[in-house]
């Protein structure tokens, strides 16, 4: 095993990797930009070094700076997390040159399987079904229009270098093509430094289901079941779960074997995810491969009892997989909510700022992977994801009930979060039935909100409680005599007397 690992990332995933390092007794080295000096990943690391200004192009994306720290601190491996440099073959290659192990696939496999167009060619070669569309990047919007004439609208534009919904636009008709092309191109350029796009046919109401694969350096491949990621807002995953509500043992085996075949054909090693679209008839189509750890890896960890980050490190260190396909057993159900600093009541606009107070859910079956704390300021420069709330249950119903319970215990005040969105989703009968597809959430949100006709006694009491709290809050803000009026409750002699009477009424045992 490695002695010291550099974590080339920030936020919750840097915290996640640091925790894995701790458990393996490997020293964790953090890097941070100017605005991340007080971030949690720096606080939890064994060592931490500055790498420049807040814009990621001047810090987290600069390979020379990352390798400079690795050399200076004497790191023997680099974990890229997800995002930033995780799928940039240049880092993997630079690591080889610098004699540092890259915890991920080799650069060549990343190039082959990570390029969406090249991966689709491999998928066709190994016989995995793919969605109709282009295999090569498109150069101009006119060329795109020409291709669409062949396959018909709706289509989806995607960044060749893309991921995470960035540089991606669905196009329903000819009139939307030019503006969608413009937006996707500029977003792709900003997010990945690569503006190239390709396009494919947009399937009606497909599900997004992905297979987690692991491959060691000794030719062993396994799949760890699937993750259902159909709840998305503008192509960004919002809720993920494992297993998928529609999965059968036969389909899991077929998709898992297709995923392994693809990974094997690309000479893949380490953890990777093969994404598929699945239609209403349970036909699956290869979408793309993510050559890295996924944001949503915890749901797989919860149902397999495996630690994917530690396995990534073991694989990179040359250890063989400690289990085979027959040993993989799925147990129970896990669901994950991605908590973002954004305002669900106002167009989901991002909401950076200082966190005043945090409510951290605990209790049975709950896991919270986050990179924040009360008093920390969420910077404006990075992705608004604060963390992931994960619930495990013996079955889907229990997992969802636990998630609902944990969401009520969660808050991050001072900024806006999308927690109320999850409450709405969990309360919807479509989601409860598992009747979801990739555009389900967009449809759900654009449908007129159902008027809340609840007018029970409990409801009106909740309103009264809110009114009382608002008054107390106002008093605490304005200070003075009004605040002292509220301070006497705890010491109230009447209450003390009442309690004494109650105690005396208790039966004598």
């Amino acid at each position, binding site marked *: 095993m490695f002695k010291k690992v550099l974590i080339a990332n920030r936020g919750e995933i840097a915290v996640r990797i640091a925790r894995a390092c701790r458990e393996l007794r490997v020293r964790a080295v953090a890097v941070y930009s100017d605005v991340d000096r007080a971030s949690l990943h720096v606080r939890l690391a064994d060592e931490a070094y500055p790498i420049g200004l807040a814009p990621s192009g001047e810090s987290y994306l600069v390979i020379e700076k990352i390798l400079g720290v690795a050399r200076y601190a004497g790191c023997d491996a680099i974990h890229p997390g997800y995002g930033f440099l995780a799928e940039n073959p240049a880092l993997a290659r630079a690591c080889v040159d610098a004699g540092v192990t890259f915890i991920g696939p080799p650069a060549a496999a990343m190039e082959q399987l990570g390029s969406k167009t090249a991966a689709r060619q491999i998928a066709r070669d190994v016989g995995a079904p793919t969605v109709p569309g282009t295999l090569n990047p498109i150069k101009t919007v006119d060329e795109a229009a020409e291709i669409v004439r062949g396959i018909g609208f709706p289509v989806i534009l995607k960044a060749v270098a893309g991921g995470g919904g960035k540089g991606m636009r669905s196009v329903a008709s000819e009139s939307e093509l030019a503006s969608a092309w413009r937006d996707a191109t500029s977003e792709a350029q900003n997010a990945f430094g690569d503006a190239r796009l390709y396009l494919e046919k947009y399937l009606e109401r497909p599900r997004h289901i992905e297979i987690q694969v692991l491959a060691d350096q000794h030719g062993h491949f396994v799949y760890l079941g699937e993750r259902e990621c159909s709840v998305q807002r503008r192509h960004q995953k919002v809720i993920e779960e494992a297993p998928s509500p529609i999965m059968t043992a036969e389909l899991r085996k077929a998709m898992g074997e297709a995923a392994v075949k693809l990974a094997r054909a690309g000479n893949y090693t380490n953890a990777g995810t093969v994404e598929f679209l699945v239609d209403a008839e349970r036909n699956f189509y290869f979408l793309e491969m993510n050559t890295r750890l996924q944001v949503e890896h915890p749901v797989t960890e919860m149902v397999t009892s495996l630690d994917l980050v530690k396995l990534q490190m073991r694989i990179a260190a040359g250890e063989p997989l400690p289990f085979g396909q027959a040993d993989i057993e799925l147990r129970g159900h896990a669901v994950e909510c991605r908590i973002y600093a954004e305002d669900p009541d106002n*167009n989901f606009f991002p909401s950076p700022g200082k966190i*005043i107070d945090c409510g951290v859910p605990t209790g049975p079956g709950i896991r919270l992977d986050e990179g924040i704390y009360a008093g920390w300021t969420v910077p404006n420069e990075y992705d608004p994801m604060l963390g992931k709330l994960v619930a495990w249950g013996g079955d889907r119903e229990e997992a969802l009930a636990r998630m609902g319970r944990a969401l009520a215990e969660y808050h991050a005040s001072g900024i806006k979060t999308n927690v109320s969105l999850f409450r709405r989703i969990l309360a919807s009968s479509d989601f409860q039935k598992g009747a979801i597809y990739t555009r389900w959430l967009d449809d759900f949100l654009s449908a007129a909100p159902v008027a809340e006709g609840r007018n029970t006694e409990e409801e009106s*009491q909740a*309103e009264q409680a809110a*009114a009382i709290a608002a008054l107390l*809050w106002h008093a605490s803000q304005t200070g003075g005599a009004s605040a002292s009026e509220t301070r006497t409750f705890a010491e109230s002699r009447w209450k003390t007397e009442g309690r004494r009477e109650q105690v005396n009424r208790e039966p004598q045992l």
Partner: protein
Amino acid sequence: MKLQIEIAGKKRQVELARANERAIWTIDGQRLEADAVAVSSGTYSILINGKSFEVRVESFGAELRAITAGRDFSVAIQDERGWRRNRGGSLEAEGRQQVLAPMPGKIVRVLVSAGDSVRAGQGLLVVEAMKMQNEIRAPKSGTIDRVRVVEGQTVNAGQVVVIVS
């Protein structure tokens, strides 16, 4: 202490008085025995006839919310100095409306200029924040009175970016 509180669109008169060292709340003239304790900054534990409510009060600039039992109430409070209400500040006299930047960020595109007529919901400009491009839309149909920002400029949350009349 007596305040007018507008909660979930309804105006209520809330009063806190003491009698024999008991806290007596009156809401719209109705007496209520409630036990309220501030458990942490902005969070209150409130017992009404034994029913337990944990209420979190959060303020964002002029906006005020009280969150409890899975409900998210918008709140406005009137004291001597007038209403402290949610989503205030954007309405101007005679239908002129200031469009505010909803978050700090950088103006990456300005899609309109003064004199343009716009429809409600039409994109006015694009603000980049937290690696996302966010389109700011017209709150109403009308004419662009002024564009107060230029491309490349950084803005703060609540800053006036466009005026529509």
